Structures are given as structure tokens and as C-alpha cells.
């Protein structure tokens, strides 16, 4: 028997020990993962009803509606033969007679199926004035007797105008950029490039600008009014602070419609505000506060004040009074201490409050509808009009989509500047 050096003996034992320890560690981390997975599953299960509700009532409808901005199969479905006939058309001049014949056949089919009006409306959205022309042609085709359909269609001058057929050809593509471009006052021109619509047709850019201006003005007003109030509440003794907070929140407990209605009472030509201003001698003549931009901004500022104030207040409350005391004792004058110590710390709250109010203002509908004048309607009013009155959901979807993109871009910029984690919304 040869003596084995102890080190030789130990090596396999050590290796065994090490691998056993490794296996042990692995099984521990696997157990931790299993436990965490179970936890996550449980919390997901608890949130599941809400997630399903959100998906069904919010997510899916929004996606479906917004998809209408780029997907509109009405014309393609209504004019299948015309689509076929136009597939070989160069796009300039008039198409050949086959296209006119196909159009006549399609129009007859639509009349038979009862979808002629829908087609007329859809074409009208792209080609102003098309509605009456389509309906007129349909009627003439019906009462034509043995007149050839080609002749009937050609007898309506509309179908021989230069803009008509490109619009129809465009409409036969189900996926379209027409509405999105229209929402930005743009269109495809005959050369296939994008151009601005003529000034007399351009409306939406101006409305978007107006919406952003009103939102910015309201945000600024709520900040100027809300910041000092938030500071007052944050530094007030507990009891008084509670009363002030209730006073700020009180309007929250009445509906926005009621508050807006209250402002219509106050702002009227012979309303309380005008009475008061006249009595105080601030004005010589009654102001037109109702149906004006200024009245709209006043009412929206009132409604939005808590949204700006509360995030600012919640940040202010976290700043201990000793901070300012320290700044003073170190030689900081009140303004310096405010600017260098207080303001940088409440800045995330200010940003959050302003962002909240600004974004909410972009979507205001009731207040501008009731208090604003004809030239104070915001983008939401146009969207509502397209949904409820014009029944042009495609245009409504396109405007909503542009608004959503603007809003998300704005939010992205804020988050980029400040960092999402520093944006103290609550």
C-alpha cells in the first residue's frame, strides 16, 4: 500500500464540496424565483378584473376608433367595379369609358342595396359637394329608362371635372392618409406630393394652435393662483390647512357641468361679475365675458386650479421648515433662499401640476361649448361635431389621433427633461 499525500486525498472531496455548494445555491435561487413568480401571479390575478375592464371599455374601442383615421373601406366596398376599372388608370386626365360604365353599375348596385347615401356622404368628405352630385346621378340613372348609363353619367358635368376622378381613385384605397393629412390642413396634390390646403379651407391647424394657447394660458393662470395658495396651505397650522384643502377640493364634489353653468350665470352681460365691475368703477361699460376667450379661460382656470395646486402642495409638504431656517441661518436672504433652496425642490411638483392641467385642458369640451364663442371652440368640440353631427368618424379619429400624438410628445418632452421618477403627480 502506498501512502497517498493528504492533499491528493482532499482534492476530490473539496471538488465534491464545491459542486454541492453550487447546487445548493442554484436550488435556493430557483426556490426564490418560484416564490417570486407565485407572488407576481397572485398580484396579476388581483388586478386582472380591472385590466380586462380597461381593455374592453378603453383599450380596444380606442384602437378601433383611431384605426378609422387611416382605414376607411366605405368607398372601396361601395365601388368594387369602379376600383377594378381604375386600377390601370394613369391618374391624369379623365379615365376611359369603362370606368364611367363601372361607376354607373356601382351606383345602381348601391341604390339597390340602399347604401347610396352612405357612399355619397363618404365621397363628400373627400370631395366637397360630391354628396348632391352622387345622389343626383343615382336618381337620373334610376329614371333613365333605356338611355345608356354611360350617357347619363357623362351628362352630369361633375364627373368630368378634373378633381373628381383622382379623389375617387384615392378613395378606393381602404388604407388612406387622407384624414390624417386633412387634420393637419394638408392634402395630396395632383403631382402626388403633399401640399397645404388653400387658406379658406384650412381650419384645423388654427384650432390646434387655439387649443394649445388656451391650455397654456389656463396652466399659467392656475400656476400663478395655485402656487401661493399651495404655499399657504403647506405652511398653515394643521386645522387651518385642513379647512383650506377642503375649500380647494369643494368644487370637485360638484359636476363640471354645474360649475360651467355657474360661470355662465356669473359671466353674463348682466351677470354678477359685470355688475360688480361696474359698481366698483373698474369698467365703464359691461364687458362681453360670455362667449369670449377671456370668459373661457376664467372658467377653465377655476375648474383646473386643484389639479395644478395639489401636486405642488404635496411636494411642498415634504420640505421640512428647517430647510428654510437653515438657508436663512447660513446667510441666505429670503429671495435667495426661495430661489436656490425652495424652488428647485418644489419644481417637480410644479411641473407635474402644470403638465396635468395642460393635458386636461387640451381635451376640454363642455366648457368651451357652453362659455366659448364660435371662435373659441377647441379641438374636442370639432371632434365631437364630427362624431355627433357630421357622422364623419374618420375625421374625428384623425383629429383625436393628432391630439393624442401631440399630448404624448409633450409628455415625453417633460419626462425627458425631468425624468419620470421625479415627476411627482401625487
Amino acid at each position, binding site marked *: 500500500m502506498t501512502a497517498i499525500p493528504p492533499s491528493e486525498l482532499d482534492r476530490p472531496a473539496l471538488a465534491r464540496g464545491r459542486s454541492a455548494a453550487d447546487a445548493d445555491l442554484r436550488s435556493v435561487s430557483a426556490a426564490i424565483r418560484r416564490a417570486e413568480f407565485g407572488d407576481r401571479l397572485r398580484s396579476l390575478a388581483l388586478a386582472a378584473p380591472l385590466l380586462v375592464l380597461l381593455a374592453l371599455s378603453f383599450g380596444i374601442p380606442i384602437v378601433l376608433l383611431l384605426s378609422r383615421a387611416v382605414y376607411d373601406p366605405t368607398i372601396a366596398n361601395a365601388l368594387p367595379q369602379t376600383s377594378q376599372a381604375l386600377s390601370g388608370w394613369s391618374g391624369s386626365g379623365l379615365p376611359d369609358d369603362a370606368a364611367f360604365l363601372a361607376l354607373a353599375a356601382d351606383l345602381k348596385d348601391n341604390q339597390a342595396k340602399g347604401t347610396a347615401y352612405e357612399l355619397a356622404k363618404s365621397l363628400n368628405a373627400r370631395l366637397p359637394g360630391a354628396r348632391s352630385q352622387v345622389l343626383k346621378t343615382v336618381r337620373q340613372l334610376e329614371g333613365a329608362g333605356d338611355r345608356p348609363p354611360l350617357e347619363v353619367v357623362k351628362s352630369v358635368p361633375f364627373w368630368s371635372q378634373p378633381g373628381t376622378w383622382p379623389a375617387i381613385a384615392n378613395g378606393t384605397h381602404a388604407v388612406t392618409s387622407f384624414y390624417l393629412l386633412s387634420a393637419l390642413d394638408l392634402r395630396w396634390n395632383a403631382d402626388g406630393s403633399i401640399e397645404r390646403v388653400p387658406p379658406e379651407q384650412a381650419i384645423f391647424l388654427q384650432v390646434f394652435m387655439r387649443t394649445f394657447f388656451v391650455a397654456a394660458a389656463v396652466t399659467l393662470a392656475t400656476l400663478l393662483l395655485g402656487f401661493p395658495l399651495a404655499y399657504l396651505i403647506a405652511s398653515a397650522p394643521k386645522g387651518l390647512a385642513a379647512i383650506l384643502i377642503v375649500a380647494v377640493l369643494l368644487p370637485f364634489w360638484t359636476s363640471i357641468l354645474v360649475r360651467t353653468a355657474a360661470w355662465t350665470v356669473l359671466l353674463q352681460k348682466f351677470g354678477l361679475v359685470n355688475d360688480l365691475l361696474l359698481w366698483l368703477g373698474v369698467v365703464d361699460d359691461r364687458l362681453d365675458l360670455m362667449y369670449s376667450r377671456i370668459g373661457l379661460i376664467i372658467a377653465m382656470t377655476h375648474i383646473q386650479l386643484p389639479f395644478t395646486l395639489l401636486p405642488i402642495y404635496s411636494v411642498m409638504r415634504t420640505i*421640512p421648515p*428647517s*430647510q428654510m*431656517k*437653515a*438657508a*436663512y*441661518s*447660513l*446667510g*441666505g*436672504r*429670503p429671495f*435667495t*433662499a426661495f430661489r*436656490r*433652496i425652495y424652488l*428647485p*425642490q418644489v419644481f417637480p411638483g410644479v411641473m407635474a401640476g402644470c403638465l396635468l392641467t395642460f393635458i386636461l385642458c387640451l381635451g376640454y369640451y363642455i366648457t368651451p361649448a357652453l362659455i366659448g364663442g364660435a371662435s373659441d371652440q377647441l379641438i374636442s368640440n370639432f371632434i365631437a361635431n364630427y362624431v355627433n353631427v357630421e357622422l364623419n368618424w374618420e375625421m374625428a379619429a384623425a383629429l383625436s389621433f393628432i391630439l393624442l400624438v401631440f399630448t404624448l410628445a409633450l409628455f415625453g418632452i417633460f419626462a425627458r427633461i425631468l425624468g419620470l421618477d421625479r415627476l411627482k403627480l401625487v
Partner: protein
Amino acid sequence: MTAVATARPAGSAASAPAADLNRFVEFTDVEKSYDGRTFAVTRLNLSVARGEFLTLLGPSGSGKTTTLNMLAGFERPTRGIITLEGRSVDRLPPYERNIGMVFQNYALFPHMTVEENVAFPLSVRKIDKADITTRVGRALDMVRLKQFGDRRPTQLSGGQQQRVALARALVFEPSLVLMDEPLGALDKKLREHMQLEIKQLHTMLGVTIVYVTHDQSEALTMSDRVAVFNNGGIAQLGSPDDLYNTPQNSFVASFIGENNTLAGKVEHVVGKECRVALDGGGAITALAIGVAEGAACHVAIRPERLGMAAAAQAGNRLTATVDGRIYLGDHQRLLARLENGQVLTVKVGPEATMANGEPVMVSCAPGDCRAFPADAGTGGSKSKTTGE
């Protein structure tokens, strides 16, 4: 106004003969009331000498923090005058007082780095950039945080944060630094370490420090003098050993260190001493500290001044039975129940072995027993001189 940080031993300034040095800070008949009915501070008279480390010690609500806030300029006295280097500071806002202040919650600016925090008092004084950099570096060096300059305060431990606060309060070389329970948020071990560190800074810079705490051991460890506050006034002002050995009233006797208190009634007063009949039986001879014959009194005796009597020992002798024993390593505390039912704590050696119920004889010299009026001794009076 000189705010020079010279390396001068702390004690020498306090004992300097010049009156203005002894009255570096002076409170004269200062009172503070918030509601017009009750006083947070009453009839406060207090002088702080240049270079002194003075501690305001007292339970919460005793007026010590109000006193500090009035000195810092955050509160205005309702009545009375506060002077700083002979000038009244009544109309001087805090940012013109040139007083450094350290807060319990550190009050560091969370949006600034450590360096920017320390640079703040210099930058508001419009000192030029290069000078600020050197002085900030020196201040951070002083509190051994040089390598943490670009961190945020929240990335530091509690002790490090308080050292930053110290550097910030000292960097502009104020001649007076106020500290409002600066170590209150730290754990015991760190607190003891920081006490020594603050004391060293005080000795090194020769700066005057007024320090507020409710921790009596902290006050005794650090201070040149301690003002014990109670009910809005100074119960006693003196050096730590004065307060410990010769308390002037029962509040100070029980607040500073551990004391046995026996309730009784003064039978007669002879010279400095008096004879007290204890409630429930027995009698004791004690030093009379402002007691009148026939009045109720409290007799205070330190546990370490009580002995287990050998038969021949003179002085007070009280028969008792052992009620319990607490082992503390280097010594033991014996609970001795007197015949009248009152219980005394006696400090005995670690080797003593006594069983519960065992009869013992507890003794003490009359000079170690101090009899105070039972109702008085709760401040509100003019600052008293120490000594008997």
C-alpha cells in the same frame, strides 16, 4: 465683527477677565409667549462667554429650543433683550446674524451635492469661486468627508450627513454656532463618537457653541457649562460637576444623573444641616438646601454615596431588606426596601452576594444627602449661581 477661527483653548476665554468676553451673548429678562397667556420662556437671564460650550438641557417643552430659536432669530422675544457682542439683535433677521446652526434633522439641501451644500453660505456671501473651493475643501477635510464631495446627502449615512451639516455651519467661520439636538437621530454608539468629534472641533476652532439637548449624559460630556431648563426657565446653571454634585433643587437632582429621593418632613434645621423625619417612619440628617422647618421636603442621595454599613460607621444608618439585585458587570445595583416602605438603589461592588429578603444596614454621610423643598426647584427663577 470678527469671526476668526483661532486655535484657542476653549476654557481660557470663559475665564478671561474682560466683561465683554464673558457677555458674548446675553439674555436679559427675556420672555416668550405664543398665546399671551402662558410663557414658553420666562424671566430668562443668561450670559454666554466667548469660546464657551454652553448646553441648554431640559425635558421637552422646557423652553430650551425656544431660547435657541430666539438667539438664531427665528422667533422674537415677547419681552427682554438679547445682545450679541454687546449689540441688540432684536431687529436683526437671521440671515444677518452670522450664526451657524445645526439642526436635528440635518436640514441638508437634498437637491445639492455635499460640496454645494457646504458652499451655500459662502456663495450667498458673494465670495469668489476659487476661495469657495478652497474653503469648502478645508471644511470637508475637517469633518473627514473630502472624498464624498460630489455625493448627494441622501447617499450618506446619518453620521456623515450630520458632519456635512457641521461643515456647512462652520465653513463661513461664524463666531457663534447653535446646535439643536444635532445627535438626536443617531444611534447610541455614533452619538458618543460624534460628541467627541464636536468637542474636538470646538477646542480646535475656539468657536462659541450653544447646544440644545435633552440627553443629560451628552450635556455632561461636552459642556463647559450647562443650563438646566424647566418650565420655561433655568433651574440651575453650572459646570457639569457642580450640577451633579451640588444640585440646588430637587428637579436638577433628579434630572441629572440617578438619585434616590426620599419624601419626608423637616423637623429642625441646625446650621447647614437639618433633621428630616421620613414619611412612614425613620429619620435622616441631610444638608438643608433652602428648606424651612416643618415643611415637606425631598431628600436626594446618589446610589454611589450609599454604603452597606459596617457597625462602627458614623452618619445616617437605615435598616432595610434586600428587594432585588441588578447585575451590571462592573458593579451591581441593590434595591433596598426601608422599613417605611420606600426603596433605595445602592451601588455595590460586583462581588457582593445578597439574597432577596436578607436584612441589610444602609448608611450615608449627612453631607451626601441633600434636602430640597418638596414643591420648589422648578425653574422660572433668575439664573442661580452655583456653589453653597
